[in-house]
C-alpha cells in the first residue's frame, strides 16, 4: 500500500502559508511577497532534499508565490486608474483564500471539540424487540444509513466482565441455577421471556441454565408458553408451590 506523505501536520499549501504567516507575524492583508515566498520555498526544498513526494498542490502554490514576488519587484510605473481597477492584486486574492480556509480550519477545531465531548456520553443497545414488525413495503435505506448505524454501535461502550471464569465455574451447578431461576420467577409478577433466563454468552453457563430449565419443567415448577409458531417463549412459575 502506498501513502502520500503529508507535509508535517499541514493540510496543504494554504495551511503551510497560514503557519508561516503566524510564525513571521505578518499581516494577512499585507503579505510581504518576497519573504513569504522565500520561507515557503525553503520548506518545499527541504522536502525535496529529503526525497519526499511533494504533492503537486505545493508546487502550484510555489509558482503562484514566485509570480507574486516578481510582480512585487517590478516598479509600478504604469499604475493608472484603469489597470488598477481591472487587475486584482494577487496578494488580495491570496489573502481571501487564506481567510476562507482559516475559517474552516477553525470550524474543524470546534468540530473536534464537539466530537470529544460527544465521546464522553454513552447509551446502551436498543432492545431487541423494538421496531421489527414492519417487514413490508419498499426499503428506503441507503448504505449511509447502514454505515451510520454501524458507527453508532462502535461508539457504544462495552464494559468488560472480569475474567473470573475459573472462580465462577466452581459455582456452577444445575441445582444452584434452578434456585436462582425460581427466585427470579417468583420475584417477577409477570411471565419472563425465555431468552432472558439465559443472560450469559458463556457456553457452560448456557448449558447449565438450559438443564435447570428442563429440570424445572419436568418437576412442574415452571410453565413455558408460546402464542404461536416462532413467537417468543414465556416462562411462569408453575402451580406446584411446594418450595416452602
Amino acid at each position, binding site marked *: 500500500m502506498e501513502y502520500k506523505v503529508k507535509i508535517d501536520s499541514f493540510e496543504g499549501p494554504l495551511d503551510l502559508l497560514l503557519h508561516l504567516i503566524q510564525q513571521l507575524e505578518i499581516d494577512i492583508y499585507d503579505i510581504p511577497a518576497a519573504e513569504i515566498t522565500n520561507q515557503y520555498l525553503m520548506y518545499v526544498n527541504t522536502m525535496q532534499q529529503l526525497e519526499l513526494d511533494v504533492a503537486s498542490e505545493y508546487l502550484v502554490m510555489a509558482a503562484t508565490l514566485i509570480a507574486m514576488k516578481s510582480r512585487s519587484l517590478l516598479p509600478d510605473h504604469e499604475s493608472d486608474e484603469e489597470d488598477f481597477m481591472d487587475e486584482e492584486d494577487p496578494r488580495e486574492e491570496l489573502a481571501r483564500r487564506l481567510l476562507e480556509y482559516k475559517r474552516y480550519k*477553525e470550524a*474543524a477545531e470546534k468540530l473536534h471539540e*464537539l466530537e470529544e465531548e460527544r465521546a464522553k456520553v454513552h447509551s446502551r443497545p436498543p432492545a431487541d424487540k423494538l421496531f421489527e414488525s414492519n417487514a413490508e413495503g419498499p426499503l428506503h435505506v441507503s448504505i449511509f444509513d447502514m454505515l451510520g448505524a454501524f458507527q453508532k454501535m462502535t461508539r457504544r461502550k462495552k464494559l468488560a466482565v472480569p475474567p473470573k471464569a475459573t472462580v465462577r465455574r466452581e459455582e456452577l451447578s444445575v441445582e444452584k441455577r434452578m434456585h436462582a431461576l425460581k427466585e427470579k420467577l417468583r420475584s417477577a409478577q409477570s411471565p419472563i421471556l425465555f431468552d432472558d433466563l439465559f443472560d450469559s454468552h458463556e457456553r457452560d453457563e448456557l448449558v447449565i441454565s438450559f438443564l435447570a430449565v428442563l429440570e424445572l419443567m419436568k418437576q412442574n415448577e415452571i410453565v413455558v408458553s408460546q402464542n404461536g409458531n416462532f413467537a417468543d417463549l414465556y416462562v411462569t412459575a408453575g402451580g406446584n408451590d411446594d418450595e416452602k
Partner: protein
Amino acid sequence: MMRNKSIIESLLLAAGDEGLTADQMAAVLEMSTEETVTLLEEMAEDILQDETRGVMITSFGMEYRLMTKKENAEFIERLAEKPSPKTLSQAALETLAIIAYNQPVTRIEVEEIRGVKTERPIATLSARGLIEEAGRADAPGRPILYATTPEFLDAFGLKELAELPPLEEGEATAQQEADLFFGRFEEALDEQS
C-alpha cells in the same frame, strides 16, 4: 403525569441509542406531541439537576435518548473493554466542516477551499456514515453533491444543523476593509475632482 414520566423513562431505556422521537412517544402515551415535549423537557431538567442521577435525556438529531452524564465519563472508561474509537483526522474534519457549512457541495468546491485533493477524506467520511451523496450538481460532468447525514448530528452531539457553531466572519471582515478602502478611494477621487 407521574405515570407518564415513568413510561417515558421505560421507553427511552428500551430504545437505547436508537432513541425515540417525541412523536413516537406521544403515540404510545396517547398525548399530543407538544405535551410530550413539555414533559420530556421537564424530566430532562429534573434529572440533570439531580446529583444522584447518572443519566440524562439528550436529543441529538431528532431522537431523544437516555445517556450517561458527561462528568461520569472517566468511570465508564475504567471498565471499557476498548478505547474510544479513533477521532477524525484534521483532513477529515476540515472537509467535514466545509461540507457541513456549505451543503450540498461538490468535491471540487471543497478542494478549492482546502487547496488540496480531498478524495481520501471524503472516502473516510462516507465510510463513517457522516456524509452522503445528495444528488448531482447542475454543472459540467454533473459532479456528485455531498451533504451531512443524521449520523453526523449524532456523532457531534448536535440537535440540528442550526446548532453548528457559527463560522468566524472572516469574509465579513475582509468586506468591511474593502468598504473602508473604497470609501477612502472615493474620497480621494472626490478630492481630485
